């Protein structure tokens, strides 16, 4: 006898489709709108102007080295002729990471405080992390059909576990005496969270964010398979047509985007925490 979870899951997905169609349609609309506006904001100006803005902003937010690096990364995407695809990918990653962090951060803190929440989350996270990423795409496509929306949903799901795990780890690792200090001076729980725990947890949180960004990027590229557009589509095209040149260029552009997003977020957050 075969045990086939798909046989159980497929009807569930069908049922969801039938009964929550309106709900999913709204989600689709929202995501499309947000993505579309970020994308068009990135594409409305000529490439060199965007690069200049990012370099200047990067300089003020994260320092000279990050600014130069950002300039190089974006410059490469532009010169490789992949500007539009890169911007689409960046928009996808930014939105996916923002949502993944918004979900994972509070859940991670909760799990760090309550052992029971963590015990409940652990098996779910284990499954989410071990299932091969493209498997997520199947139910996502079944519900949201092809395009950017299933891609971003699958990416969010894929980006949540590392962020959540490392958030829990980070808050667990805050020295107990610092938390005690907060209580002993009569600080409110919220003050303890923001002024004591968060700064102490930040280095580990940044590792989590970095993991989240890189995994999301990998997923977004993979999602080129389901018509998410962007660099993923270029890689897919390179693969299907056996165009080594295109595949390599798109691959390097992905690396450039990864470095760009990672260094910019890290540099900004690190500097902010030092200033606070």
């Amino acid at each position, binding site marked *: 006898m075969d045990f086939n979870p798909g046989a159980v899951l497929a009807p569930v997905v069908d049922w969801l489709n039938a009964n929550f169609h309106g709900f999913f349609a709204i989600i689709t609309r929202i995501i499309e709108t947000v993505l579309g506006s970020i994308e068009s904001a990135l594409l409305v100006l000529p490439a060199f102007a965007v690069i200049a803005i990012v370099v200047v902003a990067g300089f003020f937010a994260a320092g000279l080295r990050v600014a130069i690096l950002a300039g190089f990364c974006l410059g490469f995407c532009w010169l490789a002729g992949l500007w539009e695809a890169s911007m689409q990918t960046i928009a996808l990653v930014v939105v996916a990471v923002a949502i993944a962090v918004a979900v994972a951060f509070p859940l991670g803190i909760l799990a760090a405080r309550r052992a029971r929440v963590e015990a409940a989350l652990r098996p779910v996270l284990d499954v989410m992390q071990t299932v091969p990423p493209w498997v997520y795409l199947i139910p996502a496509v079944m519900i949201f059909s092809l395009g950017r929306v299933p891609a971003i949903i699958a990416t969010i799901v894929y980006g949540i576990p590392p962020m959540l795990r490392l958030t829990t780890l980070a808050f667990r690792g805050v*020295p107990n*005496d*610092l938390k*005690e*200090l*907060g*209580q*002993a*001076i*009569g*600080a*409110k729980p919220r*003050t303890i969270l923001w*002024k*004591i725990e968060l*700064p*102490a947890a930040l280095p580990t949180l940044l590792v989590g964010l970095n993991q989240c960004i890189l995994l999301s990027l990998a997923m977004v590229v993979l999602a080129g398979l389901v018509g998410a557009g962007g660099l993923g589509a270029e890689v897919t095209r390179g693969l299907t047509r056996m165009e080594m040149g295109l595949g390599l260029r798109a691959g390097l552009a992905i690396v450039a985007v990864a470095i760009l997003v990672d260094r910019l977020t890290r540099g900004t957050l690190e500097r902010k*925490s*030092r200033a*606070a």
Partner: protein
Amino acid sequence: MESNEVLIDCQSVWKVFGERSKEAIRSITERGLTKREILKEYNCVVGVADATLQVRRGEIFCIMGLSGSGKSTLIRLLNRLIEPSLGTVRVKGRDLSTLDAAALRETRARHIGMVFQSVALLPQRTVLENAAFGLEVQGIPRDERNRAAETALAKVGLSDWKLRYPRELSGGMQQRVGLARALTADPEIILMDEPFSALDPLIRRQLQDEFRQLTKDLGKSAVFITHDLDEAIRIGDRIAIMKDGVIIQEGTAEEIVMNPADQYVADFVAGISRLHLVKAHSVMMPLDQWCRQSPGLSPDSLPRCSPEADIDALIGKITGTGSDAIAIGHGGTTVGVVTTRSLLLGVRGESDNRAAA
């Protein structure tokens, strides 16, 4: 400065750790189980057992005990960082267990400061910001809190280090910042959990003297925890000795050294120098006893000292004057006599009048 106002009043407080602590507590109240029985029957650790103590305004109260004796647990019960399993803790007359979260925060912010063994400075903040942190979380404007922090830092001698980060400071200096942080909020009571234990002996002595001086000058009260009896004696007005969660003796250093409650305390005080600790009134023999022993001699012919003179001073007197007895009294009245023999016994922590007393 000394008054009798009780700032912290801790009555029969118990703390039992463990999953079945509720049942354990019930059997303690109903059946009077001991610590060991509790561990065996309920697998619960008794951290503090039936502790009663009072801290008065202006006094430094030391709690001394070895590792695991429950000192940290006890001091955390005093500001309710740990909830007592049984008993009440009153701070300035208010039962802590009746306070809601906001009132408790208020009490901690205003009345009871705390200094930690690990110092617990925030690494990403400067010395000044650390010192001002207590006021910052209370929402005091920056100028005002910085002014208070600067004053406190000046008191601990760190004015020149305001803009440095904790990692740039030595251990002793960091501990001073911890103290300054507690002083900035200007609480009446400061709880100190082994603040100097990690420091080397010289710095430690220096900080002990500074701390005692500062506390007395500012009129603060303090509960000071240490595992070192020497430190307790140097700093404390009164000392409580803890063992296995129980306060086995409480009193002034002199009382403890002269009358240890049991063998455990006796072993502890065995190595302590009595020279500056034991006063004339605890080693002298009553006047009539001396008169009986030395008929024909009048106490008026002897050199005189006050009852508060310590053994060191008495030895000085005897060696200086060549007399082998000293009359002890205030003003014109003589209350007793210290002989060479009673002095020697006093150095060993025994007293000539114990049989009589």
